[in-house]
């Protein structure tokens, strides 16, 4: 469950206050808004990369407002993927587990499992510069899911993909939603993405988040 209660965020010259939102456990929430309206800032605040000036952020019943990003248990996929340019795909999938000192055997099993889920078994030993846009998004998603987070935050995951890849990654997100029990917040400006994927849709309207009733 992702809950925002009266949260204020500030990004550069503008701030958004009184933000409230609730996505029930296991649901796929889509947050829509125009370009540069603060969507990414809200996502970064939930992830702990930007401070919330006021209000509370509650994830799965645990208040995380003052916790470090590393302690929040969120899988985060930023807009451009932000893959680690010196690491292979395999190292990406293993990264969160290595940081947690997971035993080698469990890491190998998890990497194989994720590679299968995301269809990236064949590129495990390649590095990001040689990957296509769709492959990069798959790797970024795998890296975020590796440590089995209960929350997944996606920032325009389909934003910079061509039409074919767009459909492909969209289907992949549907599959992930079906196979992985994770509460998701997907930020986008595209109505069609919301229609295809969302269990619940929200819209940033002025400085408020409003639930869009289907």
């Amino acid at each position, binding site marked *: 469950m992702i809950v925002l209660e009266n949260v204020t965020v500030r990004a550069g010259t503008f701030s958004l206050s009184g933000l409230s939102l609730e996505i029930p456990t296991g649901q796929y929430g889509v947050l829509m808004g125009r370009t540069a309206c603060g969507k990414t800032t809200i996502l*970064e605040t939930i*992830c*702990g*990369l930007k401070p919330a000036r006021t209000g509370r952020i509650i994830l799965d019943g645990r208040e995380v407002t003052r916790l*470090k*990003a*590393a302690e*929040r248990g*969120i*899988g*985060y996929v*930023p807009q*451009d993927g*932000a*893959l*680690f*340019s*010196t690491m292979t795909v395999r190292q990406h999938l293993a*990264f*969160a587990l290595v*940081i*947690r000192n997971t035993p080698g055997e469990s890491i190998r099993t998890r990497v194989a499992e994720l590679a299968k889920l995301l269809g990236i078994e064949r590129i495990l030993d390649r590095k990001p*510069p040689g990957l296509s846009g769709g492959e990069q998004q798959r790797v970024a998603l795998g*890296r*975020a899911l*590796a*440590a089995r987070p209960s929350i997944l935050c996606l920032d325009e995951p389909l934003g910079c993909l061509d039409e074919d890849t767009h459909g492909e990654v969209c289907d992949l997100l549907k599959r992930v939603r079906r196979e992985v029990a994770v509460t998701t917040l997907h930020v986008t400006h595209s109505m069609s993405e919301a229609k295809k994927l969302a269990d619940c849709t929200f819209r940033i309207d002025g400085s408020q988040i409003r639930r869009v009733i289907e």
Partner: protein
Amino acid sequence: MTISRPVNAEQASTLAGESRAGSGLHRVPSDVPFVVGLCVLGSVYVLLIGGMLLADLSFTTPGNFLAALRSEDIRYAIRLSLISCSITALLSLWIAVPIGYLMSRYPFRGKAIFDAVLDIPIVLPPLVIGLSLLILFRTPAGRFVERFIPMTYAVPGIILAQWMVACAFAVRTMRTTFDQISPRQEQVALTLGCSQSQAFWQIVLPQARRGILAAGTLAWARALGEFGPILIFSGATRMRTEVMPTSVFLELSVGNIEAAVAVSLLMVVAAVIVLLLVRALGRPPL
């Protein structure tokens, strides 16, 4: 002589319209003078640099060169230069990497002043740096340090004098390097469970590898050419505080121009190697 015919307003506007629409009528002056001008002005400087180096080469013979290299004093100077520059380069990186990262990633009060202070060694006249170091080690704090490490007119002082300037260049290079690495990857690493230091060591530093090598090489080259601060702070004692620029100065002052040129040429070779290395390392990674 052309005789202009008076035209009425309507005719004038039609003429203007025609000349706008007909692109064939618009004549552009030749680009040749502009390009030639750029080439001439550019080559004056480059030819001067090349001429200078060629003149150095023609001034000495292989015999002179080898004779200079056989001199015990000059061999000591070369050894001391290579060792002190390498230590200076390592010390510069040791400081430049954290300062470059701090300046690139963290906002803090007084950052603009801190930044300006970092540039002081670059803009300060070299002699002034030497003199300031000399005065610093006359203060009680300086004397206290000298009880453990001899600085004034000693080898550690040479490294300190080189480091004061070289480090400033390494800091600039490292800051640019970190500025060019998007903080996004570190942010993702934080959400994946990393502490800030883990994100730095595992994500940022491997990407900064080329920048670190470039900064180290640049610091090494600056240190090799450093003369003013060393002359003031460490003196120019043969077989003791003599580095390669000191050799050039000492040989010149006794009129042994062949030896001065021989040592200079060695420094030219070192500088060219460094330049090529920095160029090669400076290329953006794939």
